[in-house]
């Protein structure tokens, strides 16, 4: 038990140390140039702020959402162009900044919507292609963009035009914008959106089952990221006083933005800041020291360092920092003993079945020539546990996919009675989740990069939009599932039994009215099976209706109020557990024909 209290303590210490380090770093970025008071040093630090801001904004999409964009210069360029165009017709860049942000966010949402169907390298490639298209268009529409020669701003000095003789105001703006972007990134990562983004990145289908609108949250992320990038673009345009398509829509610039985030630590809030702080001066220095030596030497070293960093520090600098912390933490031991022995088995009294809550009628599904689901119909009542059994390949999981919105049926209907008492026909996982249908997956799908608590919170956010409420709900659920001691452990460190419980916990945190459990007992040991049975009963006692696919017969028999037997896509028997197991057709399906005649 002491371990349990120890971990949060270590976490608090870690957090305080981190906060102090961050405050010191930010203060240093602002104070150093002011103290040194040298224009060039100002320029270096302004550049640091610009790149740190851009990389942090990129990281919201590239890191949190895991969508590797190599075309972020599109948004930077839009911000810069809009800002300068408006300045030229007499509108302050402070207004232009928001105009650019709005346009960039809209463009981002429009071009990302189709692209988000693509994963990994395809998304990266399509962003590169889009960047090229934008660059060529900016070159081509000369009347609008000034073509290849670019655009300039009139040198009106003053705050309203963002052009200054001295450097301090520019630093104040750059620093302020960087802090703003960091704050936005931090806010996102520590609130619902961030959890949902990371969950989507780690396991898209599990996130959808947890009621996350995966496309929606990604669109949010990309729009926010684009808007922030565009705002920085407007400022940088005013700082340069001059922009042209080659530099505004540049692939190498996009790669550089992404690279700072990668080297700092992909998906961490402050990694990109760290990356920019270390690399901007280093790049400037290397360029000065090597650039004059020979053409290409500097670029060669730059490329080689990038390769080495990727190979040897793939998790970035924040990964190194994190490893240092976790090395200290390891002594406090996260792997506590198994929780208390299972509660005593209660005597089982089947309650009266209630009203109908799920109606499945005549479902059909074909995969090519294979008829996987043949005219399946059944009904689930409130407070009922419905066991779904059948040999391998009977079509049980396919059926589950259809009654949770992951797969569309060829024909037939699935209806769910909503909390409003009306019948609905949901079509996608999000709708099912909204109606209170939760599901688990046969192959466990933990969000590996998150802690146990955060995993469960992803589910809890479905009911509790606020992070504190969600955390409290997640803790309650974790206690109930016997996951209390592991709250702060990485999900990937759990045993298979633990992962199965985590899978159920995440769904339970959604507080579902209907629970679809896909073989939660497969592959776990005997005592875990007993605990799982108790768990399901206690869940049902809370008024949740359950459909469970199970192979463990002991469990099915002791749990189910009603059993459906599926074979080759057809319902071959249904009824009370006792009657079903004695049905000759069932025995034949499970054991082969000769047994029935024996």
């Amino acid at each position, binding site marked *: 038990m002491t371990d349990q209290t120890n971990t949060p303590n270590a976490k608090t210490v870690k957090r305080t140390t981190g906060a102090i380090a961050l405050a010191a770093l930010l203060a240093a970025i602002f104070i150093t140039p002011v103290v040194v008071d*040298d*224009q060039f040093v100002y*320029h270096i630090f302004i550049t640091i702020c610009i790149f740190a801001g851009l990389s942090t904004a990129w990281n919201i999409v590239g890191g949190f959402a895991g969508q590797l964009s190599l075309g972020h210069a599109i948004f930077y360029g839009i911000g810069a162009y809009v800002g300068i165009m408006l300045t030229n017709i007499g509108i302050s860049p402070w207004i232009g900044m928001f105009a650019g942000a709005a346009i960039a966010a809209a463009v981002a949402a429009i071009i990302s919507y189709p692209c988000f169907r693509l994963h990994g390298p395809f998304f990266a490639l399509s962003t590169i292609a889009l960047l090229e298209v934008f660059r060529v268009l900016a070159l081509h529409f000369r009347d609008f963009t000034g073509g*290849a*020669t*670019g655009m300039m701003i009139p040198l009106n*000095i003053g705050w309203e035009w963002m052009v200054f003789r001295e450097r301090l105001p520019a630093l104040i703006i750059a620093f302020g914008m960087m802090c703003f972007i960091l704050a936005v990134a931090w806010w996102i990562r520590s609130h619902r959106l961030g959890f949902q983004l990371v969950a989507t990145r780690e396991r898209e289908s599990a996130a959808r089952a947890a009621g996350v609108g995966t496309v929606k949250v990604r669109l949010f992320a990309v729009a926010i990221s684009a808007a922030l990038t565009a705002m920085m673009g407007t400022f940088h345009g005013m700082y*340069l006083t001059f922009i042209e398509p080659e530099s505004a829509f540049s692939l190498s610039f996009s790669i550089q933005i992404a690279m700072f985030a990668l080297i700092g630590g992909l998906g961490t809030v402050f990694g990109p800041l760290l990356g920019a702080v270390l690399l901007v001066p280093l790049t400037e220095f290397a360029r000065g020291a090597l*650039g004059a030596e020979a053409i290409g030497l500097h670029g060669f070293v730059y490329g080689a360092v990038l390769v080495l*960093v990727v190979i040897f520090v793939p998790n970035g600098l924040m990964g190194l920092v994190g490893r240092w912390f976790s090395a200290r933490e390891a002594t406090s031991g996260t792997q506590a003993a198994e929780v208390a022995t299972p509660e005593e088995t209660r005597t089982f009294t089947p309650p009266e079945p209630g009203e109908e809550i799920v109606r499945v009628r005549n479902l059909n599904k074909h995969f090519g020539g294979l008829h996987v689901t043949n005219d399946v119909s059944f009904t689930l009542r409130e407070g009922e546990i419905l066991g779904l059994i059948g040999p391998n390949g009977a079509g049980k999981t396919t059926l589950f996919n259809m009654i949770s919105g992951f797969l569309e049926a060829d024909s037939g209907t699935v209806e769910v009675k909503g909390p409003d008492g009306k019948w609905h026909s949901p079509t996608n996982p999000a709708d099912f989740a909204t109606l209170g249908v939760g599901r688990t997956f046969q192959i466990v799908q933990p969000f590996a990069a998150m802690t146990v608590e955060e995993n469960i919170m992803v589910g809890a956010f479905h009911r509790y939009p606020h992070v504190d409420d969600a955390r409290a709900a997640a803790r309650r659920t974790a206690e109930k599932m016997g996951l209390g001691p592991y709250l702060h452990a990485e999900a990937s460190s759990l045993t298979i039994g633990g992962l199965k419980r985590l899978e159920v916990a995440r769904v339970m945190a959604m507080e579902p009215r209907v629970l679809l459990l896909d073989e939660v007992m497969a592959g776990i040991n005997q005592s875990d099976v007993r605990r799982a049975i108790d768990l399901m009963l206690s869940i049902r006692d809370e008024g949740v209706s359950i459909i469970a696919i199970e192979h463990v017969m002991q469990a099915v028999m002791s749990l189910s109020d009603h059993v459906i037997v599926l074979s080759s896509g057809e319902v071959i028997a249904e009824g009370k557990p006792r009657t079903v197991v004695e049905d000759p057709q069932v025995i034949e399906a499970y054991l082969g024909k000769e047994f029935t005649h024996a």
Partner: protein
Amino acid sequence: MKLTNVLKMTAAAGAILGAQAAYADVTFGALYPFSGQLALLGEESARGLELAVDEINASGGVQGEQIVLERGDAVDNNQAIGEARRLISREGVKAIFGSYSSSRSIAASQVAELSGIPYFELGAVADEVTGRGLQYLFRVNPTAEDMADTIINMIVDKVAPAAGKAPGDLKIGIIYEDSSYGTSVSGHEQRLGAAAGLNIVTSLAYPASTVDMSSIVLDLKQREIDVVLQTSYQNDSVLFLQQSHEAGFAPLAIIGGGGGYSTQPTADAVGHDIIDGVLNADFTQYVVNKEFTPGIDDFLAAYQEKYGTEPRSGHSLTNYVGAMAVLQSLNEADGFDADTIIEAVSAIDIPEGTTAAGYGVKFGENNQNERARMMGLQWQDGKLVTVYPDDAAAAELRSRN
């Protein structure tokens, strides 16, 4: 990895913060792209400035003070701004010379203007460099407009008579790479060509990185173009000349606008027989009437001595001539105040035919040297020979048949 980073950081910080160079002499900035893709000609341009400084220092410096050149590497626009700031604030330069690339020049000169430091452009050709009404910016070298002007005049004065046609009867096709350089030169070609009564049939842009220009060649061939004006870098010059040859497209004249048409590797790549007779307009080159360009031999000798090779292009000469004109005028002034420098430079009045580049120096509207001009050149027997205007010509223009 982390430790080395920290060490390098410390070293970098030390280099930035420490060692404020102690100088008793006068310091000027040399802002060129010394690394990156533009480095080759950036370096070549800077050599001209260095030779001018050496020559001035050898003869006693300006106002008795030796000149120290502080280099700044303008590898991209953001860097150009950073380096301009460094030169001004840390090195305390009295003026900046630069910068070969127009976009770097535009970015850096805005900084100099805001800091009140004179900026002398010796090589960038885009209109926007001087078109912004800056007070502290002066450009000595000829511009994109001068290039187009030379090309159009050469067609009217030389190409059309040699072909036995009236200039207005020639069908002219303009092709250009779509970056700032090609766009601005071709824009002036269209405007000045129309003003001179030429028949410009088509104008086509393409990206300089292309690997295939057959569509363009086909288009020009189909339109029966007589004179092709191309503004291009090396790769696309080679492609166009080769692919026209292979497609059997042989116009009366092909006229390049500097860039790829002025470099020896282009001629070697295309083949001396194929490029023979191709015309070009660019800064003053080295096969020229030396009566018109006094001092060019001394320049070549000094270049050879300092760098051990011949100049790779006319950029060094143009920068040298510009820097000499500015530095000599400063010798007459008293002090290195920005306003003193501007006053001295505004008074420059060097007549044509007295500099190593041939053209004179006098700043006119927008502080542009109104006497600057480009030369008409032709590839003859593997060499780039000056053929236009007549007083600078080293040889007669040959007809391409």
